[in-house]
């Protein structure tokens, strides 16, 4: 008996989970977010930890210009408390792209802080004024960091990421989450997801914090949306209690299992994600407050690659919409149609109790039925009804008995367990 109940409970929960998964997976196809912008911290290059302090005009977004042959960086753009910014501060390009640096204010240079081992970019050390420009072509994959010597102290720093992916879109995996982070998905909106996908491509090991601050308590995965390269090992570290990692959906041929047992602070586990695609997961105890996250495995596509406008939801089926709109219109037209067919019917007169005497006036009804045998109140004994009520009562008893033993049929016919 106890096992039977347990089985049933388990199965209902399983069904709910399966349902949620399918609904979300179905929704996935209908949305195209198209956000190709990544995010990275460049080992703190734009933060207080690096020389020159925080770069204010870097908002965490690496502008994705992969797939383009020529890219321009403005030198001395507005930012960092004056005209002391590289714009964009961080940009991702494809190998072979030519980057042109254009001065739009005075007294700046481009000093190289670091670059990939076998790269030989020199930047432009001489200080130049508005109107000057120079170009460099970047071939070697990796991160290039540079700054303006006169204005380093106010955070005039920049970075260029040269990465595969642009122009070769077959490798690219768009950061499409469907409605996973919105109110339309189970658990509702994820407050700590701000629309950015943190880009950690090219790194071998990446950490996701489980139970970080967010979603109205310690109910967040940090980062909620993450992009890594195939083969990256992702480590999940618990920093608060009562969480697990349940996989909502993943690429078809992937087999990530997450970590369903509920664990507390200090626990961690790792997973190596090889298959390209989008992995969605959540914390089951805190799904209702939006403790959800996703990992994209694979490089980001070029910003202007692909079809639909970014961030919009395309209708699932315009044809179906048209058909239904047509059906509604037809339904509303039906009375008009009916009126057309009935145009021959003579206008019914106003309340015309007066025409009664006139023979043939109005509609002819069927004659009132005459009983074969007139039965009055006193002559009538509803014995048949009594018989049926008895039958009904017996069925009722039988149904209650059946109902009672349904729970016991798995074992045996017993009332004492």
């Amino acid at each position, binding site marked *: 008996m106890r096992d*039977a109940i347990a089985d049933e409970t388990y199965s209902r929960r399983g069904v709910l989970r*399966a349902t949620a998964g399918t609904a979300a997976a179905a929704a996935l196809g209908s949305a195209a977010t198209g956000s190709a912008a990544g995010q990275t911290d460049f080992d703190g290059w734009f933060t207080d930890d690096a020389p020159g302090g925080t770069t204010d005009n870097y908002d965490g977004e690496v502008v994705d210009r992969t797939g383009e042959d020529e890219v321009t960086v403005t030198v001395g753009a507005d930012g960092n408390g004056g005209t002391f910014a590289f714009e964009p501060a961080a940009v991702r390009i494809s190998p072979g792209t030519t980057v042109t640096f254009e001065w739009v204010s005075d007294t700046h240079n481009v000093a190289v802080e670091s670059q990939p081992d076998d790269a030989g970019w020199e930047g432009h050390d001489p200080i130049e004024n508005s109107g000057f420009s120079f170009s460099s072509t970047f071939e070697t994959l990796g991160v290039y960091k540079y700054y303006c010597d006169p204005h380093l102290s106010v955070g005039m720093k920049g970075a260029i990421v040269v990465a595969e992916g642009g122009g070769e879109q077959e490798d690219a995996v768009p950061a499409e989450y469907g409605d996973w982070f919105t109110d339309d998905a189970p658990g509702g909106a994820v407050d700590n997801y701000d629309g950015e996908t943190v880009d950690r491509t090219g790194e071998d090991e990446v950490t996701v914090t489980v139970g970080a601050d967010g979603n109205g308590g310690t109910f967040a995965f940090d980062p909620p949306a993450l992009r890594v390269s195939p083969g990256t090992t992702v480590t999940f570290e618990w920093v608060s209690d009562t969480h697990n990692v349940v996989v909502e959906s993943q690429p078809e041929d992937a087999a990530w299992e997450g970590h369903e047992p509920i664990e507390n602070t200090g626990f961690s586990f790792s997973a190596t994600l090889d298959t390209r695609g989008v992995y969605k997961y959540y914390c089951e105890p805190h799904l209702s407050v939006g403790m959800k996250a996703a990992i994209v495995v694979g490089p980001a596509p070029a910003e202007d690659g692909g079809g639909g406008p970014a961030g919009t939801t395309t209708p699932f089926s315009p044809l179906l919409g048209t058909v239904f709109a047509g059906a509604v219109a037809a339904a509303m037209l039906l009375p008009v149609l009916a009126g057309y067919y009935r145009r021959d019917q003579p206008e019914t007169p106003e309340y015309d109790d007066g025409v009664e005497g006139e023979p043939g006036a109005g509609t002819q009804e069927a004659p009132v039925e005459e009983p074969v045998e007139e039965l009055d109140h006193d002559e009538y004994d509803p014995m048949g009804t009594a018989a049926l009520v008895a039958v009904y009562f017996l069925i009722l008893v039988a149904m209650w008995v059946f109902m009672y033993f349904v729970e016991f049929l798995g074992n045996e016919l017993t009332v004492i367990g």
Partner: protein
Amino acid sequence: MTYVDDYPGAAKLVRWHFGVAFIAFALGGVFGLLQGLYRTDYFREALPIDATQYYTVLTGHGVLLALVFTTFFICGMFVWATTRSLDRPLYSDRLAWVGFGSMFVGTALAATAILNGFAPGLPFDSADVLYTFYAPLKAHPAFYFGAALLVVGSWILGAVYFLTYREWRADNPDARIPLQTFMVLTTFIMWYVSSVGVAVEVVVFLIPWSLGWIGQVDPLLTRSLFWYFGHPVVYFWLLPGYLAWYTLLPKFAGGRLFSDPLARVVFVLFVLLSTPVGFHHQYIDPGIADGFKFIAMTNTMMLLLPSLLTAFTVVASVEHGARQRGGDGYLGWLRALPWDEPAFAGTALAGLMFAAGGFSGMINAGMNINYLIHNTIWVPGHFHLTVGTAFALTAMAVSYWLVPQLTGKPLRHRRLASIQPYVWFVGMTLMSNAMHRGGLAGLPRRTAEPVGDAGASAFDTVFSTIAEIRLQIALGATLLVVALLMFLVVMLGTWLSRPGVSALSVNGHIPEPLSGASNGPRVLDNLKLWTGIAVVLVLLAYGVPLGSMVADGILNPGASPFPV
């Protein structure tokens, strides 16, 4: 002379109400078939919907049938019942048309919002909130405005019935209220008392919430307000069926109503007990004291009394008809009944099915065994017997008799009409029994997925298999839609035919009851007394629990919904 000749204005009103009702019926019925096939995994790939749109279809099916079809049909039928039994035109046709217009605009708004689920980009966002529209599911405001207009329109129609009655009362100060009018008025007293709940839910909470004026609502409070209305609404569907069973079915059977006073007692009991029962939909909701759930259960069980009284009175009246037609014996009289008359067959089969719906209803209402079937497919199995057959099949059967009188045109496609109730009955038998048994095996309701497929062993049926249950549901749903189409063909054919070609095959004569109103006490007609007691019972059942929900902040949920 038939009804349309006596009351052309009222007949036109009824025709328009029925017209909208039948269109909603057609669309909602097709949605039902889509739903039935999709979740039972028959032709799933070929159907033009996906798992998300399943819920759009589900919402459309529920709202169009349970709210639109029913309300329009009932308001139209009550116009007929009031004018016929009081033998006078309505107090004001114009006011009645205002009510109709309000309901019509409301329906159009809500239906558009729902249908947007198929094609985002139309003016309203979607409204996949199911017909049980409480928080946290949120629809576009158009849906809530539509629902509000629908209810308000029905209130206006109700006011017209009462005003017509008041005029009649001025002319007949000492007469007993004619039975049909008594039933209309008591039904609407019950409707006014109970629909206040949904009006408050929609106007005070859901509309401001969907417009973004308030950030959150208390889900338990809005849920309770919905179910405050959500159970009496089933009696709003059922009582017009009772009106037909008491006043028309005996005539269809060739007999007379057994007892007029018993019928009045039944309707009075429904006025008193229909509303303070809503908590029996919330047995598993936390935040409501068990004692109040127990009160709701007690009231619900007491509602079995009028239904059993009805079973006795109506069956005795039908038996009277059979004996007047020459039938005899304990059960042999059943053969003497006019089973080939669509109006009789439909109404009688609907009553029979309601008896079965009563069985499962008792289980729903039992606080302990409710846990066994709560939120399983058992529940839709139950209400397809009640609203889906006791009301819907009765409405179709009454239409076979009434529409000729409303149009002055004889019923067309009679053979189709006389088979139709049986097709519906068989279809519903297949579908509903399978749903009940699936519910006992734990199959959930409100899911697009053909559960039982994966890990099928998790759902152990008592006998047979999940696959067989799914087949029966799909087959039943198909037969039901076939029956619906048969009905629509008959109605459309009748409606579009030319009038005056031949005499009607029906007459509007309704014989006097065997035991008339004068055999019952006058207090039965004291509507103010019954209304007063009904309100007191509602306050007893709902005052304290609603008070405690409001006390912790009118928009605040009582407790955090997740472990901290």
